[in-house]
């Protein structure tokens, strides 16, 4: 079974600002979503339809790769598919809200993420300028993993010290 598989989607939103028949200012969103690897696309005006489209493509991918796995039993295959659906349920619950928040206030969302980063600690509290963003390489990931693991050890050692101090009191 191939362990890594990628599905990419391109979502196009077109915003329409208009005055309705009563002269009230109105806004409408129209979208198109394409599945890059498969070439299919669909239009939507409700974001849930885009989610449904993504879900169907990702489900197809999961089912195809699980079905073709010769080393898995029927129960294991069912378990994998069920786990994949569970993950998707979580994504589909939070993704529309996140997307809408970003659409409403993209700067605010970036600021919020930056604030969350700044709470982690001084070591990584430096704000990241959008222009400096780039794709992480495998060695970047390795460095990040080793830094996180080092931080976890330090936190654990700090916790022990705090426990000791509390007991002394």
């Amino acid at each position, binding site marked *: 079974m191939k362990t*890594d598989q*990628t599905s*990419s989607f*391109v979502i*196009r939103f077109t915003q*329409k600002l*208009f*005055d*309705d*028949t009563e002269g009230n200012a109105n806004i*409408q969103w*129209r979208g*198109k979503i*394409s599945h*890059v*690897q*498969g*070439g299919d696309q669909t*239009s*939507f*005006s409700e974001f849930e339809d885009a989610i449904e489209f993504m879900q169907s493509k990702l489900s197809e991918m999961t089912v195809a790769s699980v079905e073709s796995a010769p080393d898995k039993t029927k129960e294991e295959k069912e378990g994998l598919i069920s786990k994949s659906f569970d993950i998707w349920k979580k994504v589909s619950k939070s993704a529309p809200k996140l997307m809408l928040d970003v659409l409403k206030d993209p700067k605010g969302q970036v600021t919020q993420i930056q604030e969350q980063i700044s709470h982690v600690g001084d070591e990584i509290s430096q704000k990241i300028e959008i222009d400096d963003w*780039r*794709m992480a*390489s*495998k*060695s970047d990931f390795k460095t990040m993993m080793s830094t996180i693991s080092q931080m976890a050890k330090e936190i654990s050692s700090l916790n022990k010290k705090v426990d000791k101090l509390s007991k002394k009191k």
Partner: protein
Amino acid sequence: MFSLQEQYNNYKNSESGIRVYTLGKFEMIINGIALSDKDWGRDKTLQLIQFFITNRHQFGLHKEIIIDRIWDVDDIDQGGRDFKVALHGIRKVMEPNRKSRTEASYISRQGSTYKLETENIWIDADALDFYVKLGNQALTSKKGLAIEIFNEVISLYHGIYLPNRMYEDWSAAERERLQIQALNAYMVLAELIVDDNPRECIRLAQSALMIDNTWEEAYRFQMQAYLQIGNRPQAIKVYKKCVEVLDREYGIDPLPETKRIMEVILGK
């Protein structure tokens, strides 16, 4: 400081030893000779140069990222070897007379990062961006020049970006960006000529709808243009098509702006 006309003429008449076409097809022309797919040898060599072209505006691409995106292998060493072979292939095609151990002119390297140096390469996608920028500047004061420039934009757009890589996710963002540029260019030009040349306006709107059949503005320009030439039945037909497509694709009605044009057509 060059005038808009001079900037346009200078860019149009500039010559580059290497010309790259990415819209509707991929082709590289070196000193007037078009390369065939065979000249690139392996498909991965061709894919690598296309990846460099797609990421030409980045400061540099880390070797590991390139390997990850193109070869998708877990074995870094194997990926490194594949990358080296493909890079050598590119350099051999683009600089066949380069002496070994001399700096490559087109793919530069800094540490583990690589970049396509585009100063002496003409790329249709860059030309399209340049003309859109220049055309937008000309819109307010030089309508004739703006028309000429936007005609240049649409003549560059022969189709989607790198069609032979449409299933590769690294090319998707650039494809989408350029398609939107082209759609907007069609609409700007349609607006500029709707009164003076309604028949050409109809053709432009139809071309835009071939790219995206839900582009409502294109239906509006067609309706206005048909009205201009006195063909009401056709204008009504276009409106009906617009209603049908928007209902089918989005389940919505046309915008009030489109409905108002229909009312004018019906003489209400």
